[in-house]
């Protein structure tokens, strides 16, 4: 079936405001209540099907809200060749939805054609930098637009890393022109797990390259008597991350901000509350988003 792209009356641009991660549990609620939310973000891969209800709902919601496409499966840092079908599906979805932003992760997730469905860590060295820069250039060429790259939550570091994570991201952005998606929860989680300095991270990241901020909840796990933070997206943004977010806004400036909650998803109203909290920090009156 050929799909005729529709011209959305609503502009695709994501303005300075808080958005919400759109999950299937909330489709009907969003369409019925049309909440005052600036924009929605979805996991691109959930809409790679050929048709059916998910795409139908997304198109309906797109009629009233800008959409950001956030990928979790491109496996950018993998040594496997980029998956042409994946890229083609993403481009098809972009043509259909006309997203305001398109993003992926600073990670890898496959080897030998087997996928982990996870965001695995990269060594931050020259080899990885060259590799990723080449891959991002390929993606930029294919999609015909800039993508943002998100800092991951991580639970290990490689001895042969020669860059700090933010230096690596900055350099990647400088070489390829990609933007940076700064996940403040991930900064908090990784800094805790590795003993990095979060303020140093925020002051080091290239502020003018940051196009979006993510906020989410994490879980504290005890491993061998030590607290390890795991990026679970299954609860509210904690007060420490809200505080770090306010610091981030002071250090790098205000940016469109997403509330992510993917597991044990609460009622839409709980997400709207968090989005309004972000809006108040951004200095955005929530009526603006209506």
């Amino acid at each position, binding site marked *: *079936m050929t799909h005729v792209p529709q011209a959305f009356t609503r502009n695709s641009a994501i303005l300075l405001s808080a958005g919400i991660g759109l999950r299937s549990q909330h489709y009907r609620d969003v369409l019925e209540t049309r909440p005052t939310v600036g924009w929605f973000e979805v996991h691109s*891969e959930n809409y*790679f*099907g*050929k*048709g*059916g*209800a*998910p795409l*139908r709902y997304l198109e309906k919601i797109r009629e009233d809200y800008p959409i950001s496409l956030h*990928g*979790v*499966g*491109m*496996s950018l*840092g*993998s*040594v496997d060749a980029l*998956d042409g*079908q*994946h890229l083609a*599906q993403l481009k098809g979805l972009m043509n259909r939805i006309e997203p305001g932003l398109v993003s992926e992760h600073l990670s*890898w*997730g*496959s*080897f*030998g*054609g*087997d*996928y*982990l*469905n*996870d965001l*695995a*860590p*990269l*060594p931050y060295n020259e*080899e*990885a930098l060259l*590799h990723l820069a080449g891959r991002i250039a390929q993606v930029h060429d294919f999609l015909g637009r800039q993508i943002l790259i998100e800092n991951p939550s991580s*639970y*290990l*570091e*490689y*001895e*042969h890393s020669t860059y700090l994570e933010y230096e690596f991201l900055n350099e990647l952005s400088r070489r390829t022109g990609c933007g940076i998606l700064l996940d403040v929860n991930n900064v908090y989680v990784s800094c805790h797990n*590795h*003993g990095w300095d979060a303020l140093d991270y925020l002051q080091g990241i290239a502020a003018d390259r940051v196009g979006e901020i993510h906020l989410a909840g994490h879980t504290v*796990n005890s*491993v*061998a008597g*030590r607290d*390890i933070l*795991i990026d679970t997206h299954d609860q509210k943004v904690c007060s420490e991350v809200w505080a770090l977010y306010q610091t981030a806004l002071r250090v790098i400036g205000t940016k469109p901000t997403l509330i992510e909650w993917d597991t044990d998803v609460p009622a839409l109203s709980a997400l709207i509350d968090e989005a309004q909290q972000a809006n108040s920090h951004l200095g955005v009156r929530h009526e603006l988003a209506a």
Partner: protein
Amino acid sequence: MNSLHETQRRFTNYALRGLGQDLVGEGIKSNGLTAQQRLAIYRNNTQLGLTEALRDGYPVVNKLVGTEFFNHLARSYIRRHPPKAGCLLSFGNQFADFIAAFEPAAGLPYLPDMARLEWCWHEAFHEADANPLAMSTLAKIDPAAYGKLGFTLHPSARLLASDYPILKIWESNQEDYEGDGRIDLDEGGCHLLIYRPKWDVVIILLPEAEYQFLNLLDMQLTLIQAVEQVTVKAPDFPVQAVLQRWLNSGLLTDIYYQQ
């Protein structure tokens, strides 16, 4: 120093299959935890994420075997058939065959067919949209071309036959089920059509002849050929009524003429 290639090869083998524990920690900082403990967090995330993805696609299989057994089943499946794409829509496509060969599940002989039914449902849910065949198209059929006329089924249509009453078992495991849950496994099999007329997937119990007829149309036999075959065993097969039913229900979406 490990190359990116070697790092990813070892990590993947460990996270998906638990292999190479002795070497996988090379080049990882300990910093308060051992490399093994750090890698175990990733292995656990991978296993959990993929197990939940599989459970999402097979809710009735999960109910029938229980969470713990399903976790065990999923772990074995992930080892043998990890995802082959970054998009998980096709992950789990060999689960039914895997269950059929999985010794500890042999006590539930209908389980592979239940998995097949749930996979048909999953595929139908994400398949392409298609409009019902327009009456105006039907009106334009040239009677002289009837011999070559064939019908196209909705892209989401899946036909499934089982030796077990899997539809009854499926229904009794739905949240809105109100029956007493008693099902006689010896009552015989069933013939099913699974498709998505608009946005919701439906599962329909078919008489055997009707199942065979739709299957023949789907295999691109012409209408006449399909009727000829079906009426060998079912001389009273109500062609008109069956065609009407599936035209009205959006299962038939196009016509074509065989060359």
